[in-house]
């Protein structure tokens, strides 16, 4: 519950303060967003399953973002950054959809 509140506060903070992203980090923003969404949906589903765990949530978010950024960084260096970005988005996107479906089943029982 507090986490959901913190999420809302974070969104408001970001919209109000409009922090600027340093240029070298800009390519990683979309990937960070997808990784963050994956962590959020995973957390919500775990919460609904009754097995939410703070540590797993934090570690999964941080590692998701770091690994996704690392993959994209390596891909950029190797000249296949676009393809690897697509790969990351596909894998995380499948997970997001799956978790969203599970959440939907929990909420609507359908």
């Amino acid at each position, binding site marked *: 519950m507090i986490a959901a509140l913190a999420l809302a506060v974070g969104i408001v903070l970001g919209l109000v303060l409009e922090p600027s992203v340093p240029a070298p980090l800009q390519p990683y923003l979309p990937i960070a967003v997808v990784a963050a969404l994956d962590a959020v949906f995973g957390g919500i589903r*775990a919460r609904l399953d009754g097995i939410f765990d703070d540590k797993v949530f934090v570690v999964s978010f941080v590692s998701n973002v770091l690994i996704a950024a690392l993959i994209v960084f390596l891909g950029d260096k190797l000249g296949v950054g676009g393809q690897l970005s697509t790969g990351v988005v596909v894998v995380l996107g499948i997970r997001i959809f799956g978790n969203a479906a599970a959440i939907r089943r929990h909420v609507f029982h359908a």
Partner: protein
Amino acid sequence: MTASAPSPRRDGSTAPGARMLADLLTNHLDPGYAAAARRRDREGPPPPLERRTLRTAAVLAALVIGVVLAIAYEQAVARAPEAARTRAALARDVDQRSERTDRLQRSAETLREQVAQDRADALAGDSSGAAAVTTLRELEAVTGLGRVAGPGVLVRLADGPPPKDPVTGEPTSEADLGRIQDRDLQDVVNALWASGAEAISINGQRLAATSAIRSAGGAVLVDFRPVGSPYSLRAIGNPDLLPKRFDGSAAARRFRGYEQQYGMSFSAERDDRLELPAAPAPELAYARPVAPERTAAPTPSARGGGSSTRTPTTPVPSATGGRP
């Protein structure tokens, strides 16, 4: 993704890639949650201090996620006008540059005029000088490098209306058939030359021997300067013959057809007072004028050098210039 909890099921699928794909498509939830729940069942909840630290970390993570989402939103919103801004800046740049070239061209024109005037003044002293000036004037008029005036024909062309979607009335992206292309202008210009025109300008751009009418993207360029619809072509020639001959040319007939078919507008009428500007003078980097006494010799042979490539001196009539 993080915890290396043993995969709960190990079915018969053999290839590791296949199992990974199946895992990806069936187990969406991080296995770490299940593992943590099992550990909690086994060992009981962690001590309060650790629990509070972890809760704070989770709240911080959620805060960071929120900020990231907000930043991404801001960026997505900011990027769209940025593209428009870039486009506007480029358009402004283009406008400024073309204005500058216009200005430079005008100043070149006045300077050229002044040079001609000064030359005439300087040579006016004796009769041979005056004769030279007259010859020069005539040569300039013929080659398009001097301003000319006289009677002739004024041809007006304009694009047809852009194609519209029959349902919504919005402009569609299909090929704009009513648009005048470089080839259309070339046809009209060629028809004018063929009808006996002595000097032609398109939207105030005088055509010289090396002038090109071509297109780049959607724009028509005359001597690398863009011209746009409506086009007005001024051609000086015999005021009685030129309009009639042009009217009977294939190009004029075709354009009357276009008028019906695509809604282009086309008109050609006699005009007794036409004034055409000078064309920009091409710089000669390699070609050198040949001395007159040599050129007077009818046979371009003998004499030293064996320069077999010497150009024949009789002026090449412009009627054969390039377009057979």
